[in-house]
């Protein structure tokens, strides 16, 4: 009887494991290659993504500030690029039952105006083939300030071709 009880408890424990929301693996520190992109001090003149989408022209040198997010998966697998969202937009609160608050699913209407992509590029403007999380040790919802060049397209999308990053928190 005790054996059956013990088996039951063990079975329950085994079933319970993995039923919670998926946890985000903690970002490791920046790689040796990525340290070259880390800025020791926050660059001056940072503007929010929303403002930059109005002001910045193609080829302008810019300093952009934003929170990593804007999609359930703001990363590009195997590439040094990620989405950032203007800080005026708040991520979904925990009590709204959102498993990935960095996707801003509670503010989908405002999201397109507040979103931009940051790409760390080589000399020929090609994105580096290392995952941004490994390269820079960043994770979702961190506030970052990136320095780089603006790339605009005819639809008004903003891409920051980044050369430096400062992680605020």
């Amino acid at each position: 009887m005790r054996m059956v009880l013990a088996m039951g408890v063990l079975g329950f424990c085994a079933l319970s494991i993995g039923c919670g929301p998926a946890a985000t693996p903690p970002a490791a520190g920046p790689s040796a290659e990525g340290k070259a992109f880390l800025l020791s001090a926050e660059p001056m003149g940072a503007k929010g993504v929303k403002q930059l989408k109005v002001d910045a022209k193609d080829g302008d040198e810019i300093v952009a500030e934003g929170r990593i997010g804007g999609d359930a998966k703001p990363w590009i697998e195997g590439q040094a690029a990620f989405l950032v969202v203007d800080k005026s937009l708040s991520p979904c609160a925990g009590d709204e039952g959102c498993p990935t608050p960095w996707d801003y699913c509670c503010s989908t209407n405002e999201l397109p105006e507040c979103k931009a992509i940051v790409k760390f590029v080589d000399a020929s403007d090609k994105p580096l083939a290392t995952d941004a999380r490994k390269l820079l040790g960043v994770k979702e919802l961190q506030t970052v300030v990136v320095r780089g060049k603006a790339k605009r397209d005819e639809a008004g999308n903003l891409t920051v071709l980044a050369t430096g990053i400062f992680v605020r928190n």
Partner: protein
Amino acid sequence: MFRLRLLPWEYGVRNLLRRPARSALTLGALSTVVLLVFVVVAFIRGLESSLAVSGQPNVVLVYSINAAEDIENSAIPARSASLLSASLEGVEKQFGVTRISPELYVGTRISLRENDPPMFGIVRGVSHAAPLVRRQVQVTEGHWPGPGEVIVGKLVAAKLSCQASDLEIGKTIRFDGREWKIAGHFAANGAAFESEIWVPLTDFQNALKRQDLSLVAIGMADGSSPSDVELFCKERYDLELQAIGEVKYYASLQKHYQPVRMLGWLVVLLVAGAGVFAGLNTMYGSVMGRVRELATLQAVGYRRRAIVASLIQEAVLLSTSASLVAAVVAIFVINGTAVRFTMGAFALRVDSVAILVGCGTGLLLGVFGAIPPAWKAMQHSVVDGLKAV
């Protein structure tokens, strides 16, 4: 000096033949149990295999960001295909043709004749570029569909619960307010496409009064990766597209069917458990009826372990035969049988894993079914055993 003197091999075999009715009944019961295990494992393997072979490593699917993981809910602008073709560098080309397939993927009601009750089926509107990207697809009979024509996959009859003869070339089927002539049949090496009906894209768009697409499938050149397309979609977020490698997409569907697979394995365990109890019951009956014989064997000098080994040998012989019978039935009757499920249909698959699990279960039934009753029988003293009637 310590060598165990076993009973002759033939003794166990002859014992089985001495009680043919009991042996036949046990064989039948064990075969049924092992066959049930085969059916469940073939179901799980068929489902897994259908989703696994559907994805190709160099193909990327681009569809609406609002569709979550369900391509059927996706609607993207018709110009997406040409836009992707013009914007992406790593797309595979052959003889100047770009491997980009615009597709309209819809679940719809299909009837074979005008007054027949409609059945749910999957229709994919495709262009001539589709076979360049979906390389598993082969037209096995007939020809590529022209205007007003369709080609049907080899599992469509199972999906629509109709006879294969209903879908012969030249016959017609009805969906979305039109009658379509069957121009050919295709196979796709077990992929999910086999439960679909393919129709010319523009005809299908006209029939549905839709000008959009569900997805664009892109064949990437060597050295390119799905992340190139993913990066484009994230950069052009005004288009609200998302990209995913086809292998990853079907792997995510596999995750979706994880509870079904878990349930399947649980059924295997339960069936095997029930089999062990049935085997135990039979073996108890068989061994307890032979107490006198077993005591005699002890009296003439055979040790208990040798007698237990002989009883296990009998049970294993029986369960191995049952496994073989079940395996033969599974391979020739069950293997390839089409089964309907939400996404389409797939064929039950009796592969090496199914044979290993099925026959392994059979063997374990023999061993574990025989040990307890044999051990119990050995607890009697020789004198009591010889007196037993």
